[in-house]
Every structure is written in structure tokens, then in C-alpha cells.
């Protein structure tokens, strides 16, 4: 296993393995028998922005702690890029209150045995600039606002060019503006080729930021894949609001839309049809269309379908 990681670290750029993180049966049982993470098999593709989705307490942070070597897995294995190439934000920011933002970054840079000391100051300044803290670089951490602290933590994760960025709830405590900035940052970082593994309990966030997602529930990984494949598990449907239910149903059936249902309105799977075409057909057939909409299943539906649980809408 050691050699595998080393191999990956030294692999020539052309032969990039397909996955940034894989886990196999990764399990953490705490003393007392509580299973925090239950045999999960993560597959985080290289270059992806992977949303690690799940309600609070579903085992996301425990998984991240195992990946970062903070806690020992009870069972299972994982592969990761070497930690020197991984930037991480775990369970909120934590810094030395009596040091300035810059001094804090230099402190953590010093802890990295492979960080070149000569460029430390420049890299710290760059990271601070990137998260918009350049002006507050000399200010003591104690005086930072919650949002600034969160940004400083992201800056610490960006101190060096990374292969992998692990961000645990990166938008916690940020105002809407800050949240937007973090999303933009993630996009930037991903564009540079860095794999981003971002945990969140906010569906919307993952839907907007990520290319892939894995869904955790009570310690188990219940689904993972591309966002499209996850939400595309069930097809989009067209819904027609009309008093002429029977007529509308006949038109849809004639167009060979599958699974036509009649209730208080008429719905059917959209298939490959264009909604405006269907509307035209309905009008031609003399159906009085009051409203027409396309309903796509969202991640939330997938999640509720998979776990029977809802999300707390806003953490």
C-alpha cells in the first residue's frame, strides 16, 4: 500500500490514475461500538469536484479525518495522494489566536516537511490575496470575523499547489457573498486541475458546485456518481395543467410518451421530446392548456428516495 501511494506521487504526469481518492470498506467504529462510518467505498475521480453530501452526523467528517490520517480506520483501506499534496479544511478553522493571519499560515507551512521555506512568505501572501485577506494579513487572528477565519482556513489549504483539496463544510459561517466567493474559488482551483472533495449538508451547494457527489446517510455511502447520473436516475416528466384531462392524455399517448398518468393533471415522461413541440400538438388537438411544465428530479428527490430522510434546508 505504501508503495502504491509513493508510486502515485512520483508518477509521470501523463499516466494519471483515474481516481484521486478510493476507499474500500472503510469503517470506523468508535469505542463503545458506535459505527460512525460503515464500510464505505468512495471513488473520487481525478479532476472532479466531488460533493460529499449528507446530514450532520452522517459520518462525513469522520471519513475526512480518516483520509487525513487523524484517526485510524477500524477496517478497510484507502488511497490518497500524499498529504503534502493535499490541502485541507476540517471541521472549521483553527488557528493561534495571538498570531496574525500571515504568521498562522507560516506556522502551518513550517509543519509541512516538503514546503520550501524560501518561498513561504510569497506563498502565504498569494494565498491570502486569493481569499481576499491580503489587507488583514497582519491582523491578529483573534480579531478576525467568522467569515475571515473561514477564508484563512481556505488560504491555509491553498498554501501550495495541491493535487487534492479536502474542504469540510467550506461555506459554514459565510454570508451569501462569501459563499459565492468560495464557490468561485473552488471552480478556479478545479480549473487548475486540482481534485476537490467538498463535504456539505447543503444540497443546493453541491448541485451548484460539484461534478460528482456521494451521499452519506447514517454512516453508509448510499449513492455516488456524477451529478447528472444521480439526478438522472429518474427521467424528467412533463406536466400539463388542463381541464381536458382525457384529451390531453390521448395527445401524449399519440406522441408515444411513456408512462402517461392522469390525475388532477396529466403527466408523462418527457423522453427526448421538446416541450414546445408537445404544447403545439396539444393546441392543435384543441386541448385548453392552462400551464405546462417540465419536472426534473433533483438530488433531494434522490436522497429522500434513498434514505427516507430530508435535509435541514439551511444548516
Amino acid at each position, binding site marked *: 500500500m505504501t508503495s502504491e501511494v509513493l508510486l502515485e506521487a512520483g508518477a509521470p504526469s501523463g499516466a494519471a490514475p483515474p481516481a484521486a481518492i478510493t476507499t474500500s470498506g472503510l469503517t470506523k467504529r468508535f469505542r463503545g461500538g458506535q459505527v460512525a462510518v460503515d464500510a464505505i467505498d468512495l471513488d473520487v475521480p481525478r479532476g472532479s469536484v466531488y460533493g460529499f453530501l449528507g446530514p450532520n452526523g452522517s459520518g462525513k467528517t469522520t471519513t475526512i479525518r480518516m483520509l487525513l490520517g487523524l484517526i485510524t480506520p477500524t477496517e478497510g483501506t484507502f488511497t490518497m495522494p500524499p498529504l503534502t499534496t493535499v490541502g485541507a479544511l476540517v471541521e472549521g478553522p483553527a488557528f493561534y489566536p495571538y498570531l496574525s493571519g500571515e504568521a498562522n499560515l507560516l*506556522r502551518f507551512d513550517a509543519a509541512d516537511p516538503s514546503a520550501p521555506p524560501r518561498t513561504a512568505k510569497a506563498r502565504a501572501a498569494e494565498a491570502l490575496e486569493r481569499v481576499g485577506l491580503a489587507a488583514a494579513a497582519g491582523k491578529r487572528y483573534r480579531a478576525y470575523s467568522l467569515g475571515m477565519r473561514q477564508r484563512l482556513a481556505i488560504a491555509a489549504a491553498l498554501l501550495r499547489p*495541491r493535487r487534492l483539496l479536502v474542504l469540510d463544510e467550506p461555506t459554514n459561517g459565510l454570508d451569501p457573498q462569501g459563499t459565492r466567493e468560495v464557490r468561485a474559488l473552488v471552480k478556479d482551483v478545479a480549473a487548475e486541475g486540482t481534485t476537490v472533495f467538498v463535504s456539505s449538508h447543503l444540497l443546493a451547494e453541491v448541485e451548484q458546485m460539484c461534478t460528482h457527489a456521494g451521499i452519506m446517510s447514517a454512516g453508509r455511502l448510499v449513492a455516488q456518481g456524477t451529478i447528472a447520473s444521480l439526478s438522472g436516475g429518474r427521467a424528467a416528466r412533463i406536466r400539463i395543467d388542463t381541464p381536458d384531462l382525457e384529451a390531453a392524455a390521448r395527445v401524449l399517448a399519440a406522441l408515444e410518451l411513456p408512462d402517461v398518468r392522469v390525475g388532477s393533471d396529466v403527466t408523462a415522461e418527457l423522453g427526448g421530446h421538446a416541450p414546445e413541440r408537445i404544447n403545439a400538438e396539444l393546441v392543435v388537438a384543441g386541448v385548453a392548456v392552462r400551464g405546462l411544465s417540465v419536472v426534473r428530479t433533483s438530488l433531494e428527490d434522490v436522497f429522500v428516495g434513498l434514505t427516507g430522510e430530508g435535509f435541514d434546508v439551511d444548516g
Partner: protein
Amino acid sequence: MSTADTQTGARRTPGLVPVSETRRSAERAAAPREPSVLSEPEPSGGVVAFWRLLRSELGLTFRRPRNLIMLGVLALVPVIIGIVLKSIGTEDADGGMGALLAATAGNSLMLTFVALSALVPLLMPIAVAVVAGDSIAGEAGTGTLRYLLAAPAGRGRLLAVKYLNAVAFSVAVTAAVAVSALVVGVLLFPVGPVTLLSGTTVSFADGLLRILITVGYVSAGMAALAAVALALSTLTEVSIGAIAATLVLIIVTQVLRAFPQLDWLAPYLLPTHWSGFDGALRDPIGDMSGGLLAFTAYIALFLSTAWARFSGKDISS
């Protein structure tokens, strides 16, 4: 060996990139989109990086107001003792410490030994216990420990840095007292040959050398305490808990030493050996090897315990 164990090995030894800088520069040109990890300049190497972390640690310790205040208070004690001795005189000194105090009035160097005698049993250990007890638990408490380990500082490496830092503080504590006492002594009392406990008189330079030996011995004693405090520090996430536990240990052992029934226990207790620095005041210089061996034993036992505990500990703070 379970698979999890192999993995453990993997994550603790983050792979360095075994490719030369020139080659990586070339790769950078060839593959600009590859995350530029591979294009970083050659890491400065294990030893240099270790010193960098140690320097960072020392910077935190010796810039932290709390620690500076402790050093200042300790350095102040010899000043107070010196001034009191100078102003009240020592005519009525009788027996025990009295004679030592009288000797102080007669020679500038003796103030160092008086000050150390006064501070070694409790005050200096408290200062060392605060820094060493805080070392791991404090980082765990503020959560910075998880970021240090994710950096990745490496557990053994971080523990070594933390201990060396505590040793440096032990030396600083001892040196602060000795230097302050030396300066105050030279200012207030006559400079000249020193009378030892054995009744022999040695030159001022010889006296200075003996102070140096004393500082070394007392520092070693404090470093042994630091190992105990460090081990306790790995057991908790509340630094005040580790500090308090160390202080309780010191006080309990000091109390145990007061019972003659427990004389048999004394050689195994750390504080028993702290006062062994008076060997430097004998002629020939007293055998300090017993104390140094005891310190070594304490350091070996508690440092290895700290390592065993810390390297396998789940960091969940």
C-alpha cells in the same frame, strides 16, 4: 497485518517526489495543466524542515506573553533575594540555609545557588509543566493539532519538536534564574574566590564553571519533568488538565519525600534528584551521575509512553 495497518504506514510517510528539479521543470513546460505539485522546488530536506518546524515552535513559545511572564517572574526572584539579603544583612543567620545565605553575602556567585535552591523544588517545575503540559493538549484544545497533522507535520516528528521545545524552555527557565542571580550577585556582593560546601575555596572562574555545571544539571532535571508533562499532555485535549496533573504529581512527590517512613521511595522520585545540583558545590565535585541516570530513565520512559500514546491516538478535536 491488517490492511488498515498498511494504510496507516502509508499516510504517515508522505511520499516525497523523487524526481530531480530539472526534470520537473521540463515536465512543467510539457504539461502546464498538471497540478504544479511536481514543479515545486526541491523540498529542503528532512533536517532543514525539522529545524524549520522547531524554530516555528520556539518562536511560539518564546514570543508567547504567558511564557515570557513566567520567565520574568523567575528571573525576578534572585533580584528580590539579593536585595533582601543586602538590606537586612545576615548576622543572625544560624544553621542550614542561614549559613548559605551568609555565604551569599560574602560572595556574589553563591546567590545563584541560593536562588536555585529556592526555585528548583516548585516554581521552576511549575513553569516547565505549563509549557510541556500545554504542548500537545493545547494544540488539541484549539484544534490546531488537526491542521498540523494534516500539514502533515508527522506525529513522531511533531512530538520530537514539542519535546525539544520543552527542553529548550527548561534550559531557558534555569538560565533565566542563574543569569539573573549572577548579575544581581555581582552587582550587590563582593566578587572573588568562592567557598564551597566542603570548606574548600576555589577561584571565581572555577565558581563560574560550577554554575555552568549546575545549570546543565538542573536543566536536565527540568527536562525530565518536561517528558512527564508531555506524556500527560498526550492523554487529554484540555491543556489545563495536563498542567494540573503534572503539578499534582510534583506536589504529591514533594509531600511523600517529607515522610521518613517513605525514605525507600525517595530515590525513585524525580524531585529527589533535582536538589542534587549541590554536588557542584563540593570538592571534589559530587557524583551527579545518579541524578542524571534518573533523569535519563524518566525521559526514556515518559517520552516513549508519549510516543506510543500519541502515534496511535485518534485526533477528534
